């Protein structure tokens, strides 16, 4: 309620928590310690954030429940961010991911709650819808050659139109309890299966990007399409695959959304769009600085959510979400560019070697 209170210290603290660790990591003289700081700066920033809120709101913030509910509720965002990490690694922007999330959740709601289709089939239909959207994106971007940012912007709007259409613009509730049990109901120590899935998906993405030839090839395609082609990679197929995988993961995020709320809102995905991009870019500044990566994004999601959660505990109004996520996205992108630059400038000494 006391948003307008000018003495409220929180917003400046956020900005500060976001900025200094990475920015101050000097590019020129980085030893092993510097590198370590660089990699884990986001985790330190997260710890600082928790400490700040802990001091300001010790009673409500520093509760196990706060953290378990944060972990459980953000599985959807983690999975959507993973979807963006895949497409961003191949240097494509998938702006339709959030709309696919909404469509997938809504398909489950319509099929399961309204048409009594068994939940398993409804989930399969939702995931298939994701693959269809991914295929269309792939055809537009790879075969036809439309810029991905435009193609997926259009597809996103088209998909939201379909979502509104099949739901008659209504929130639909009454999704099978089975899904809810398997996603959001706390199973052990207050942790739900949804969080476990999110960790598993992030781990899978980590494995894919780091330990498979395909992940490496995707990285090369993203960094230099011409170089990748001259090196003999099937560039078109890799880009197509990345767009399909991205949409599939977005649909999976939609399944978790349906499980989390037992209902689907036709606009449910919209509020995830910005946080997911912010987390993906912020994540690319840590763990493996300079690359979009799964654990960095995972940490970034919870860093951002902690910020929002702490602010809401302090009674700050809804609009702060937009300010916070928007600001975080801008700062994260700027940071990721700066990190990439410092990474590449780093071993100047080696140049003298020859």
């Amino acid at each position: 309620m006391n948003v307008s209170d000018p003495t409220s210290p929180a917003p400046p603290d956020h900005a500060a928590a976001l900025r200094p660790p990475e920015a101050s990591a000097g590019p020129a003289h980085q030893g092993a310690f510097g590198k370590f700081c660089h990699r884990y700066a986001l985790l330190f920033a997260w710890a600082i954030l928790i400490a700040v809120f802990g001091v300001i709101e010790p009673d409500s913030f520093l509760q196990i429940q706060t953290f378990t509910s944060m972990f459980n509720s953000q599985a959807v965002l983690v999975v959507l961010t993973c979807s963006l990490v895949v497409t961003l690694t191949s240097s494509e922007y998938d702006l339709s991911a959030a709309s696919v999330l909404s469509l997938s959740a809504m398909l489950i709601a319509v099929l399961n709650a309204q048409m009594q289709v068994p939940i398993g089939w409804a989930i399969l239909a939702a995931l298939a819808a994701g693959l269809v959207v991914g295929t269309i994106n792939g055809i537009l971007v790879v075969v036809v050659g439309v810029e991905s940012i435009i193609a997926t912007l259009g597809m996103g709007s088209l998909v939201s139109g379909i979502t509104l259409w099949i739901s008659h613009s209504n929130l639909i509730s009454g999704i099978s309890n089975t899904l809810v049990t398997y996603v959001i109901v706390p199973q052990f120590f207050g942790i739900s299966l949804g969080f476990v899935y999110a960790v598993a998906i992030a781990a899978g993405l980590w494995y894919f990007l780091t330990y498979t030839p395909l992940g490496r090839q995707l990285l090369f395609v993203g960094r230099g399409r011409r170089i990748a082609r001259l090196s003999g990679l099937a560039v078109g197929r890799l880009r197509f695959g990345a767009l399909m995988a991205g949409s599939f993961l977005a649909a999976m995020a939609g399944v978790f959304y349906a499980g989390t709320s037992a209902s689907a809102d036709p606009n449910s995905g919209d509020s995830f769009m910005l946080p997911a991009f912010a987390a993906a870019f912020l994540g690319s500044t840590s763990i493996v600085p300079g690359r979009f990566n799964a654990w960095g994004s995972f940490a970034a999601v919870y860093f951002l959510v902690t910020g929002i959660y702490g602010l809401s505990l302090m009674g700050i109004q809804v609009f702060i979400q937009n300010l916070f996520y928007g600001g975080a996205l801008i700062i994260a992108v700027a940071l990721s560019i700066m990190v990439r630059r410092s990474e590449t400038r780093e071993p100047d000494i080696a140049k003298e070697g020859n």
Partner: protein
Amino acid sequence: MNAATPVLEARHFSKRFGGTLALDDIGLTIDSGSVHGMVGHNGSGKSTFIKILAGYHAPEPGAELTIGGRPVRVPLAPGRFRSLGMAFVHQDPGLIASLSVVENLRIGAIARGRLGRIAWRDEVRRCEELLAEFGVSCDPRANVETLRPWQRPMLAIIRAVDEIRRLLRETGQHRGVLILDEPTANLADSNVGQLFDVVRRVQSAGFGVLFVSHDLDEVLAVTDHVTVLRDGRIAGSGATSSFTRSDLVRLIVGHDIPPAAPAPAQAARRTDHLTEVHGLSGPGVRDVDLSVAPGEIVGVSGLTGSGFAELGPLLIGALPAWKGRMRLGTTTIDLATITPGAAIAAGVCYVPGDRLREGCIGELTVAENVGLPVLRRFFRAGWLHRRALASHARAQITRLGVRPPDPTLTLESLSGGNQQKVLLAKWLQLEPRLLILQEPTQGVDVGAREQIFAILRAFVAHGGSVLCLSGDHEQLEMLCSRVLIFRRGRVACELAGPEVIKDRIAHECLGSDFASAA
């Protein structure tokens, strides 16, 4: 108008870069209504001279420049040439392909924001008149990308003339100089004549033209005067009609036809397991046949735009060929449908000249760049063995003498020579049958160059074949046992054994008539 009035007189133009004198007391006079040719090798000082006129370089003190009879203070401020009635047309015509002809013609005025409301209908009408005046038939409303390739430099010339004229109208001057810098380098033979027609019309409209080229046929065909530069000095100058082609070649190269070096004892060229290319035609090349034997390093050279540089991308499938076949041992590949992946699988690897844009990714590590083609070898039991990959990369780069031999460094932190060795490591680990190199020692210091030569010699000694595409004749002399010379998209001649000498290569690139004389 007096035809013999000089429109541009340059005196005592010198330019020093560090310790070397790139331009040494050059003087040049261009008469109005005449075409003055300027020829010379890369590095002879042609572009330095032009860049001084453009205001890009400041000449050494003592330079004098007179334009239209009035002395002009040098150095010129960049862009000042415009207000003096000069215009440049470069090898890249500087047209925007997706805009219309008329928009491209008025691009300068649009860029300077001097236009009020643009009366497009009037512009189109004026544009039509202009195109008609210079004998170019195209629709002013058509996009430039729909024009034939040879029409583009014409359009650039007409635009330059038009801009000079507008200026002359505003200032009351009445002389202009058009500087054409290799305008034909990317054109096929048959259409150069139409471009010359435009140049002659420009000339008869009273302009002075400086025609810079290294193609002697063109210079002999279109110029009235010719100046030959060599090593920053004027090697010869006079009326074009007083020179024969051989005279010009001798002046450019600086020697008579070099004597053949005594033939070194050479192993007989193998005739089995050849890599052969038959009937390759594509953008820039026509009906190319060539063969490379195991153990052979074959050089390919030519002037800029002669098509030799396209050979690499065509053989690897990065540039679509129209037709042609490549035979590697028992397999035959259709070059019209080949992809880089298929070429690599067949044992053909290509190391592009532009390392960081086409060869490898500078911001990634050496291990990642080297490992890219062999990732599958290190993917066992569902796991990419990154440590094994890194030690493999370390072994490869150590073998080729990369300094420092640290696979975790980013590639761009290495020097040019070491980057090139990493690229060689990336492809040599595949043990290709044919390695195609483009300018393999560009941006590489002398020491590393020797090392790269040693790596290539070791590779062919074990039965590999190398095709080395380069405009560096000295390098070809040192490295190759045979050299193919391209002229206008075709293999014009083949030098072998004792004929592989840099001056001889230079002669042949320019199209010396030595071959027929011998």
